Structure formats: structure tokens, C-alpha cells
């Protein structure tokens, strides 16, 4: 029998802040962390300010083996565990699902003096190893890497395991940082980055006709997924219910999405079917909304086909926090459930001339309740993932 699955803990680090209060305050003040990096003034990036892993771990000698993205993931996992009211010994049988991208910070650990095990800075499952040791997790663990769909898929896979009874508790999430010369060069050469001059807070325009690419962000997030009966039994805080998940492959171009959005739609419809919801039941879409011509064009086409007649509200969190690469899904989820709890929907920033009509892109910050959230992310390689989350009610 399929079990209901709820989110009982969440922790995240984002360029806009590290708590619901910080993020929503910044949104209300129309404030972003977009700036031009010292290593390439053509670009705009969104860094996380004042991050120190050891604030969260205490003394931790293995910190040297965590690249910046992995460190965000580890710190977020510890915060999620704490928020879920889980203490030492309660996670022995928990599952651990981690997302990681390629560490493209190629100079780190080489230019600064090699450590004997510098390879650990580049192995994708080093964050999982650290989290398991710090949180006392001895259940199953998988580290996934599916480009920008990574952490929505990580949460989805963990959700399926709990739903089918394989686990009572699963941690899911990850961290990523591409704010370094190696990663920036890679994306710049791929033509995906916004290189427009001018005010850094104005250059990123998801779904606008004049959109010019994405802004590199960084951060990390984790959620604790738990079987509803298990969560109720221990009196856990319940933040939201995960109702459905779907994934698919384009099976086409390695970087460009299929323009029709046909295969992305397959992932979204799978998630809706599993959630036993119709498109019309969705209140809010958290779009992938990278601000590239290709993604947003495809996504608008997909949304128009999915929601004929009446569009749900559509937000694009990357216009606030930048693109967190593999970590975007879980951080957008963590922020999304915070917005659900606080009845707040942020505007798609800098959207002046929408690239499609008939879609309800949120143009101004709104204090308004929503009960169902569709989160979608699409990655290089043609990786697609979608998650349906509901306000939890008994």
C-alpha cells in the first residue's frame, strides 16, 4: 500500500538568505544578491554571504575534503535534521539521497597546496559520506547527478522509497557552487550565461522576450521526507505533503531542450498522475525559468499546453536567487514550502514583456495563499523532473 509522505524538516542556504524570514524579507524589499564577480566582470553571480561550514558542524577536520557546494549540502542537511526534531540515534535506518554536480573549481586544493586526499574534493559522494558520519545515518544512500534536474530527482527518488514503504525517513538534497572561474568559463563558452552590461539586479529576466541567459548562483538545501504515520507518531512538525513525482529524458540534444516541451510534459504529467491531481488543481508553478532563450521558450510552450484556458500562477525563483545548478530543485522546494506556509508569492523579477500570452506569470509580489505547488526542473542531457507538493491536511 502506498503511504502518504510529508516533509518534516527543511534547511537551506541561498544567496537571498538562509531562512524563510530572510528570503521573504529580501523579496518584500525587492533585494537580490546579484553582483559582478572579480574574476569576470562580464558575468553576474549570486553568492551566499558569510557561509562557514564549521558554524554548523563544530570542529570538523574533514571539512578540507568538502568543496564549497558539498559544504552547503552538509550544512543544510544538519539544519534539516535539527528542524525535523531528529536527534542522534533516530537516523540509524534513514535513507540518504544526495545530489552533486561536477566540481569545476579546478584550482581549489591544487593552487592552495594539495592535500593527500584531494580526490575527495572531486568525488561526488563525499558529501554523503560526511552527512552520514555527522548525522549518524546507516541506511541506504545514493548520490545522483542529472545536471539541473538533480535535486528535484533526488527528492523524488527519496519520496518514492518512503511512499512504497522501503524507508520511514529519508534525507534528500544537495549543494552546489559554480561561482568559480572554471565553472563560469564552461557555462560562458556554452553561451548560457547572461553577459549583459548594466545594473546586475536587472540583467536576469526569465520569461521576458529580451531574456539573455542565467545568473550563476550557489547554495544548498535538504528536506527530511517521512512517512505520515511515522511523523504523526513522533509528533514531528509537518511542513507539507509530497504528492507526486515524475521524471523523463528528452533523448535528444545534449544541451538544448526539445522546443515542444513534449518530454518535459511527460515528467510533469507523471507527477500529476501520481498526485491524483488534474492540471487545473495546481495553484502555483515554480518554473525552471533559467532566463535562457531556449529553456523559457520551451517551458512557456509546455505550460500553455498543460494549462489550456486557465493558467495557475507561475513564479521563477531563479530571478531572485540565481541558478543553483544541481541544487536548484531542493532549494526552490524549500523556499516554495516556506512561501506556502507564509502565503506569499514573489514576482518574476524584471519581467516586462512576457514571451507568451495566456500564462499567469506573477508580476508583483502577492500575499496570497496557495495549496498546491508544481515544481519543475530541466537539465543538460535532457533530464527532466517534476514534483507536486500540497499543503498538508489530515
Amino acid at each position, binding site marked *: 500500500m502506498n503511504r502518504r509522505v510529508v516533509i518534516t524538516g527543511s534547511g537551506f542556504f541561498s544567496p537571498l538568505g538562509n531562512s524563510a524570514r530572510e528570503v521573504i524579507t529580501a523579496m518584500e524589499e525587492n533585494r537580490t544578491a546579484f553582483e559582478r564577480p572579480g574574476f569576470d566582470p562580464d558575468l553576474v553571480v549570486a553568492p551566499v554571504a558569510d557561509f562557514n561550514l564549521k558554524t554548523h558542524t563544530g570542529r570538523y577536520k574533514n571539512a*578540507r575534503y568538502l568543496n564549497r557546494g558539498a559544504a552547503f549540502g552538509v550544512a543544510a542537511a544538519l539544519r534539516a535534521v535539527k528542524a525535523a526534531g531528529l536527534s542522534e540515534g533516530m537516523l540509524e535506518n534513514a535513507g540518504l539521497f544526495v545530489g552533486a554536480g561536477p566540481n569545476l573549481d579546478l584550482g581549489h586544493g591544487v593552487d592552495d597546496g594539495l592535500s593527500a*586526499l584531494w580526490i575527495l574534493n572531486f568525488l561526488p559522494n563525499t558529501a554523503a559520506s560526511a552527512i552520514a558520519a555527522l548525522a549518524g545515518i546507516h541506511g541506504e544512500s545514493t548520490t545522483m547527478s542529472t545536471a539541473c534536474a538533480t535535486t528535484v530527482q533526488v527528492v523524488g527518488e527519496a519520496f518514492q522509497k518512503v511512499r512504497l514503504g522501503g524507508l520511514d525517513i529519508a534525507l534528500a538534497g544537495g549543494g552546489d557552487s559554480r561561482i568559480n572561474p572554471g565553472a563560469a568559463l564552461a557555462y560562458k563558452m556554452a553561451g548560457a550565461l547572461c553577459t549583459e552590461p548594466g545594473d546586475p539586479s536587472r540583467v536576469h529576466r526569465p520569461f521576458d522576450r529580451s531574456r539573455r541567459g542565467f545568473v550563476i548562483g550557489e547554495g544548498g538545501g535538504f528536506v527530511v521526507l517521512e512517512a505520515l504515520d511515522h511523523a504523526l507518531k513522533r509528533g514531528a512538525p509537518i511542513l507539507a505533503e509530497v504528492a507526486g513525482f515524475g521524471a523523463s529524458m528528452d533523448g535528444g540534444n545534449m544541451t538544448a531542450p526539445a522546443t515542444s516541451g513534449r518530454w518535459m510534459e511527460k515528467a510533469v504529467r507523471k507527477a500529476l498522475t501520481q498526485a491524483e491531481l488534474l492540471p487545473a488543481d495546481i495553484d502555483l508553478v515554480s518554473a525552471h525559468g533559467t532566463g535562457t532563450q531556449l529553456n523559457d521558450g520551451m517551458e512557456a510552450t509546455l505550460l500553455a499546453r498543460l494549462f489550456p484556458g486557465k493558467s495557475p500562477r507561475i513564479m521563477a525563483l531563479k530571478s531572485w536567487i540565481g541558478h543553483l545548478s544541481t541544487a536548484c530543485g531542493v532549494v526552490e522546494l524549500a523556499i516554495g514550502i516556506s512561501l506556502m506556509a507564509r502565503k506569499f508569492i514573489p514576482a518574476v523579477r524584471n519581467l516586462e514583456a512576457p514571451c507568451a500570452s495566456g500564462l499567469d506569470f506573477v508580476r508583483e509580489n502577492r500575499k496570497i495563499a496557495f495549496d498546491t505547488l508544481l515544481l519543475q526542473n530541466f537539465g543538460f542531457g535532457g533530464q527532466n523532473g517534476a514534483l507536486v507538493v500540497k499543503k498538508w491536511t489530515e
Partner: protein
Amino acid sequence: MDNFKRVRHTLAEILDLDEGEILPESYLVRELDAESIDLLEVALALSTEFGIEVRDDEIFLKNLRILIADAGENGVDPVVAIVENLPHIQEKRAGEMVADLADGPVLQVRDLVAYVGHCCQ
């Protein structure tokens, strides 16, 4: 800076400890919780810091128990065997190691200091 201070600084960095917690008599494994991967880092860091070739088996006394067992089988005084095979260890310290062996790994910070001092001679 004397060798002890330089070794202490290296250990503090790698083991994420305050320098004040590290004494010449501190046991690396028993007290400072050094694990095998930490020792890999210590060896590399000391070789860089002092410009020496660090041999893991010698600096970390990896073959000490085998050395002592072989000495016993061959009727050789274990203290003599240690001093002959590990020239950075003085006779008095070798005697302490033999007496201390039953309580766990005997490696102390001062043994690392002796090793780098010997290599730098």
C-alpha cells in the same frame, strides 16, 4: 620557530584542534584522534613544511609491533631493535614505547618532532 611549534601548527591545522591542546607528549591516535587519512595528510604536510622526504612507515612507527615481535623471536633486546631500525628514536624513548605498547598506539607528537629533526640534520 622550533620544530615542535612547526609540527604542532601542522597538526592543529589538519586535526582541527587548538594548538594549546597539542603537547609533546600527546598521543596522536589515542588522544588527538588522528585517523589513517589524517596521517596521510600529516605526512604530506610535514614533507612540504620541512622539505624532507617523509617515510610513512618510519614516522608513524607502522612496523613497531612487528619489529618488537621479531626481536623477541630472535632473542634481541626490543629497545636495541627499535633504535637500530628507527634512528630518530632515542634509547630512553624506545624503552617507554615498549612499556607502553599494551595501552594502544604509542606514537606521540614528540616522535614526529624527533623524526623531522633527524631528517633535517
